[in-house]
């Protein structure tokens, strides 16, 4: 029996779909057991969503009322919905837009930017922007997430294979450090360093003063970045027992008395410590909590 899979793209860059295609030979193996019944980012055709979908992979965050409606429509037809990638799972980089007012953003784009200057904000035949950038689980029930920006092709293949075997996939509950081969941190860094500086080989990047989100970020990617001496930016979101990915790292640096970071502005704070998770972070919650009041 073939499994009916659908994919869909919301506010995002289609990078997750590229990662899906990047599973390579594994994809060909999968396709033996899979029928791709709906996937406009890949097949470039917008048909109505077919019924009886077994698994739906939804990429991108919920930015417009169209995204929201499509997500709901897909949920109706699909037995198992996967938030596919950082935007869908945690709000993604798009979520940083929540540090600004949505309408002001629209005004800015259509009136201030060079190409769009003096243009009218389109109101017909286009979806309306929502006041907040949301993750998928804010609008529909999500059964599983595949984290990452983009998700690792090996992990995508492995998760789909597990699903095809009729089992429930599991994400690693650990953090990046668990998979990182670098020598561990034992002392607070002497000073913070910028991303363009060149790290020493083989030693924990955080201990060298680079802002590595590894300790608070969910493992499963094999620490691909840090083993190549690129600090982890936290694209896989918080690991299982982390209260808030950004705030715990902020806390760790504060405890190490790195005074530079204690007075960060929200835009920088969010962009650095909650780059992929701001829309689902405690930082955003605090801000929203105020709005409601």
């Amino acid at each position: 029996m073939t499994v009916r899979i659908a994919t869909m793209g919301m506010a995002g860059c289609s990078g997750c779909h590229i990662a899906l295609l990047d599973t390579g030979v594994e994809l060909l193996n999968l396709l033996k057991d899979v029928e791709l019944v709906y996937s406009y980012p890949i097949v470039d055709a917008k048909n109505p969503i077919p019924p009886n979908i077994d698994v739906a992979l939804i990429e991108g965050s919920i930015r417009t009322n169209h995204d929201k409606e499509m997500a709901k429509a897909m949920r109706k037809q699909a037995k198992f919905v996967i938030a596919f990638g950082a935007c869908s799972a945690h709000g993604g980089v798009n979520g940083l837009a929540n540090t600004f007012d949505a309408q002001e953003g629209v005004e800015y784009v259509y009136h201030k930017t060079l190409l769009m200057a003096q243009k009218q904000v389109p109101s017909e035949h286009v979806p309306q922007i929502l006041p907040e950038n949301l993750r998928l689980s804010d609008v529909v029930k999500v059964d599983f997430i595949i984290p990452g920006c983009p998700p690792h092709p090996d992990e995508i293949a492995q998760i789909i294979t597990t699903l095809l075997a009729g089992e429930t996939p599991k994400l690693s509950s650990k953090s990046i450090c668990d998979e990182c081969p670098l020598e561990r941190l034992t002392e607070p860094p002497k000073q913070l360093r910028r991303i363009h500086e060149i790290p020493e080989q083989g030693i924990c990047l955080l201990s060298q003063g680079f802002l590595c989100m590894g300790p608070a970020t969910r493992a499963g990617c094999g620490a691909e970045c840090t083993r190549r001496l690129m600090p982890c930016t936290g694209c896989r979101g918080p690991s299982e027992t982390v209260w808030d990915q950004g705030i715990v790292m902020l806390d760790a640096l504060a405890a190490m008395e790195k005074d530079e970071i204690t007075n960060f502005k929200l835009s920088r704070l969010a962009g650095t410590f909650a780059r992929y998770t701001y829309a689902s972070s405690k930082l955003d919650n605090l801000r929203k909590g105020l709005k409601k009041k």
Partner: protein
Amino acid sequence: MKIGVLLCNCGDTISTTLDYEALTSFIQTLPNVKYAETRGDWCQRESLQILTQTITKKKLDRLVIAACSPHLFGTRFYDAAEEAGMTRGQITFANIREHCAWVHKENPQGATAKAKRLIRSAVFRVAAQSPTTTKTFPVTQEVLVLGAGIAGIQAALDLADRGIKVHLVEKEPTIGGHMAVLNKTYPTLDCSICILGPKMAEAATHPNIELYPYTDLVDAENLGKDWLLTLNKKATYVDWDKCTGCMQCTEKCPTRVDDEWSWNIAKRRAIYMPFSQSVPRKVTIDAEHCKMLTDGKCGVCAKICPAEAIDYEMKDEIIKVEVGCVILATGFKEFDPSVVPELHFEENPDVITQMQFIRMMDSVGPFGGKLEVPSDGRKPEKIVMLQCVGSRDERYSWQCSSYCCMAAIKHAELAKLEYDPNIDITIVARDIRAGGKGFEEFYVRARDEYNIKVVYRGDDLEIVQKNGKLVVRYSDPDGSTKSLAADLVVLSCAMTPSPGTQELANLFGVPLGSLGFYKALDEKVALSRTDVNSVYLAGTCHGPKDIPESVELAGAAAEQASVWLSTQTVSKDLDTAIVNTDLCNSCGLCISACPSQAISLDKKNECVIVDEVRCQGCGECMAICPVGAIGPLNTNPTVLDSALEGLLSNSIEGSDSVIVGFACNECVYRAIDEAGEERLQYPADLHILEVPCTGSVSTPKVLQTIEDGATGVILFACDSKLCHYGRGARMANSRAQVVRNVLTQSGKDPNLVQVAQLIGRDAKEFAAIAQKAVASIQRSNRS
């Protein structure tokens, strides 16, 4: 789980404020409470026996004691419960007396509601706690005594005579301290060095004493059972094994510098022996002034030394010593009168201090015992002594320095006895304090037999120059202004803490009192003990004292140290950090945060492991761990969350605002206890939640507390220099800034979170801070 709750009304001293009927019925509603009883005397023997029996009979496995501070009778309850097989980890206290009933006397309704929350918090918390195990570790049977003045020497000798190995460390090239250069002692006018000299010699030769002259203590690491101390043996540039103390070098050395052993009124050479009775009797080169060492030009001493002992290449030497306990005997420093503007100390060479005066009169001192006016060398005919310089003066210290009245009288008598009975000496005093044995007779004799005049003054005092002569102007108690002409003015200066006291206090975690001397554990009954149970105090480092008092305290310190060592082992209730190996990712953040170097990576780098001897259970690891994988056994994240839930969940009538005050269980908790004892009132909104160290409260924990409904949070930290765990208080401060910044950035009022630093155990300061912080939180909640 079967929880027992002991509710105590403290013989009615609590129940006048708290509604015990309401509390009793409230306790019945709490989960897992299988036994609750109210008594007025839970701390008494009969009641404690009932407790032991009840635990066994009712098969209780958790206990909440809602009574006074655990710092008061905690051990009694522990003992009674342990007798029934319970461990400390199964017991928690709800401090409804010092933290509640006594401090909210005018708000019985609020106090009762607060007591309910405190008890609920304790019940929730104890349910999440785990039994502890006790382990014992052997203590190294050695003591380090820091400072070798009379107090340090006495303590060292007392211990060494008992067969305990002592490391006696002195920063100067000689031992002996101030007493060695006092000339005579009051009230008997015995020769000071004649009493001290034999003790110095004995200390230097005692088989159980290892002497480290000219050595600084540079680091102290608490190993849990022992102290690992790092000493820097400073280079003397003289091989002391060869030096015979012949002093030929000190005669030929061309460099003259101010002599610190005569308080800079005389000169010494760059190669010198502090005084002629120095022990060890060796010379030292003052590297700062020696021409050979600074410019590479001279070398006279090397040429002249018959023993070829001079070694310009000598280096400092680092020595590590592990000892079971430490006695601080770091002494005092004479107050510097140049900071008192009206005395014009630096402008007038003929205004000197008592230390300078006694050095001048010492027959074997740098002046050979000539009493002369420094500016022109003539014999002084009129001497005026001024008392209370730097003491009993709010600008510097409100305390009486206690030794100076007798010292002034002693020096006045010596001048009359040994130089000229006709010298006119007047002591200008606020009072004469002569409380010690033989002191009054000594004073009366000076006044009546030797005609030493004593006049009394009010607050005003000034030294002026009139026609090239010194005149002391002072206000008489009757209000009039009086003047005294003088050839020589001698200032009786206060004792101040010796330089480096603050740094040592930081290293050992011993708090300082408000005058900057070390603070005793209890100023009445535990004078030689400190908050740290293997660090003791001897002599004037604890505060101004004369010789007998210093010696007495030294003896007490030696006694305490030997009691500590005689137990042979340190029992440690293992409330040490536990690692959840399933969660740990071995990121190493906890290793960087641990102040005790107790955490390391396991062999496979898969998780961290904790050395339970070193771990002090401070919880800094818990705060920094991003995934909640580590924390002290009974202050772990789950326990803290349960305690918070107990404080914050469900509303309680009469209490709609809960401000959570995280307080470190060391100094701050005791300050809060003392506020209770002094009945200092503050708002009942403030609920204290004790943590091992405020550095164990993370940014997420503070934000979560607010998210869970707290009106505000106050982080009560120690003074950052005095944190028992080193960085804890600074971490708390730094985190509070982050929290406040996050709140500001999210458009919230940062004042919801307050951070306060308490110096020492100051109850008044705590109450003032609490009131201010609570008011600030309430303001920001209203707006």
